């Protein structure tokens, strides 16, 4: 790849010293992208877009927020009532969190369906999971900041999970709290960390993109790019496709912001935190519900916590658990079925997580939890017993017989 053919002397002067223009040319304009990407490949750029909105709205919210137990709730209401367009900033931030998770969940399931975690994209996958981890931490910390009833009790329940650790558990919880209960020191550090983690995430996203641009995008066929005939430059093809995706996302996102801003929230969080009154149901935000269901599926607290963390950690092993050489589920008749069953299982877990742990919900939650892990346990065997359908020759000639020859002739 050559440096951008710019005749502008200033551009050349800068580029000779710091090749930012060359970098942009390589990574955002020329970047060869498989030409058969479908719309499921839009969700990576959507996630980046939502993250930028979250960071920007977050910075302006932080300018008006007070991280003190006596003032936090009122300072949020002050943002809603007295800060110019404060209600817009806050509702964008609140609903942005839900949109971020929605987009990232689809992005992850895209990866699961098309085998995006396989050789040579293992590290790309890992970085993605690290981003997901820090997203969850950031979301949890942020939910505590308005200091409503659900903020307080959510923080109490989640931090108490660490007390399950043998011997040192209670000391760790005290250390996390900065005291002997969730209180002002907890709120202070949560605010500091909620401000810090997005920038850690931003760095991770940069590394994610670096890894992506090293190994290049996968594609729905899951076969390697054979040559320039298989790719098109990122600009203008994917810049416009991503813009179209952003337009669609914004319609959904802003519908919630303007017309149902509290749809994803809990009414209880509009009641100021009160350590003396426990809400009848303590429910996490919707995006944590599947993990919450796994946590509660186990009667033993420590084992429940371990299982909950394992449900994400197992994804790190996925590149080796899945022994099939074929990436795309399109050519894996059994895996394709299992993928959908796994997705249903995750939705069932989410449903159970929202329900009180009683009666039939407990049993369904346990079966769904077992199935979650059974799915991963079965993958290595599946790779050996499954007979994949024949792969196409190349991206440009996706049809095996007849059609391919015709297309080659045309070309």
């Amino acid at each position, binding site marked *: 790849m050559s440096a951008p053919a710019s005749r502008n002397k200033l551009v050349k002067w800068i580029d000779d010293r710091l090749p930012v223009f060359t970098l942009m040319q390589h990574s955002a304009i020329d970047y060869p992208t498989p030409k058969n990407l479908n719309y499921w490949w839009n969700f990576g750029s959507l996630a980046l877009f939502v993250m930028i909105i979250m960071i920007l709205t977050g910075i302006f919210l932080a300018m008006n927020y007070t991280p003190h137990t006596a003032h936090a709730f009122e300072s949020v209401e002050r943002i809603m009532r007295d800060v110019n367009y404060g*209600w817009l900033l806050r509702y964008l931030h609140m609903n942005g969190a839900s949109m971020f998770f929605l987009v990232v969940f689809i992005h992850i399931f895209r990866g699961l369906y098309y085998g995006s975690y396989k050789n040579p994209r293992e590290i790309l996958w890992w970085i993605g999971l690290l981003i997901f981890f820090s997203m969850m931490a950031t979301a949890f910390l942020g939910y505590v900041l308005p200091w409503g009833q659900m903020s307080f009790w959510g923080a109490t329940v989640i931090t108490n999970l660490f007390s399950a650790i043998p011997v040192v558990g209670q000391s760790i919880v005290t250390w996390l709290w900065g005291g002997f209960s969730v209180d002002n020191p907890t709120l202070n550090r949560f605010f500091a960390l909620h401000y810090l983690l997005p920038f850690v995430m931003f760095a991770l996203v940069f590394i994610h993109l670096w890894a992506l641009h090293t190994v290049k995008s996968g594609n729905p066929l899951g076969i390697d790019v054979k040559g320039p005939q298989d790719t098109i430059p990122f600009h203008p093809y994917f810049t416009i*496709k991503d813009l179209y995706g952003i*337009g669609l996302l914004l319609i959904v996102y802003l519908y919630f912001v303007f017309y149902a801003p509290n749809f994803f929230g809990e009414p209880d969080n509009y009641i100021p935190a009160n350590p003396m009154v426990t809400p009848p149901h303590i429910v996490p935000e919707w995006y944590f519900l599947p993990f919450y269901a796994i946590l509660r599926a186990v009667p033993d607290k420590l084992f429940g916590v371990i299982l909950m963390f394992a449900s994400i950690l197992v994804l790190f092993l996925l590149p080796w658990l899945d022994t099939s050489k074929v990436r795309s589920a399109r050519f894996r008749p059994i895996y394709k079925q299992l993928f959908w069953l796994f997705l249903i299982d995750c939705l069932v877990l989410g449903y159970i997580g929202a329900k009180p742990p009683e009666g039939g919900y407990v049993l369904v939650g346990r079966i769904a939890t077992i199935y979650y892990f059974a799915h991963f346990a079965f993958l290595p065997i599946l790779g050996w017993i499954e007979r994949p359908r024949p792969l196409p020759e190349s991206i440009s000639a996706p049809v095996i017989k007849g059609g391919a020859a015709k297309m080659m002739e045309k070309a």
Partner: protein
Amino acid sequence: MRRFVVSVLSAAAFAVSVSALPPAASASEGAHLEKQKWSWSGLFGSYDQAALKRGFQVYNEVCANCHSLKLVAYRNLAEIGFGEDEIKAIAGVKELEDGPNDQGEMFTRFAKASDHFVPPFKNDQAARVANGGALPPDLSLITKARLNGPDYVYNLLLGYKDTPPADVTLMPGMSYNAVFPGSQIGMPPQIFDGLVTYADGTKATPEQITKDVVTFLNWAAEPELNARHGMGAKTLIFLLVLTALFYALKRQIWSDVH
């Protein structure tokens, strides 16, 4: 066939999960709420200004004797159509403690437009003592802090029964209200025919009074709603056009890719 089964199953599970997800703990709120038509619901919904003014009158004459409205300032009443002098008059009869003055003494003064609504009690403990041990909640966010808030408050205010069902034994000082969780509520029935005399001549039926005060309370909780809906409609129309243009451009640019 297997594919079909899987897709039907997934559609069903998705439908169940999605419909059950967000208002998660809905199961606990037992009583059936009779849904009302609120002027502010819907894409172009906005507050009924006359109802807001009437609702403020109900709050001010009735609710404010026990319930605070701490997050709202008297100056905010300008948004629901009160003039500067009216606001001064409304605030000017409420006393609050301020200070210290230059002698180091706390003193009592009348409220100004810039003050927040003066609470009826000095503190929560005083409120409990005056109300048989029950704490009347602050109403600033009441319609947001309950599931289906406006309908809940409406049904609650009209949900009293003079004689509780045979299997319910009321605790002393409590009233029976089927809408309230636990059915026993510390607040006695408040809404009666002719409870207030509306300045605009509207007939003060219990339903009318309740509807007006809920409208006012929803404004207190979401004063930005009119601006939000107005901006929302414009934004979404703009986005629909913009996205359609992006789509057309995408088709155009991609037309040479095979």
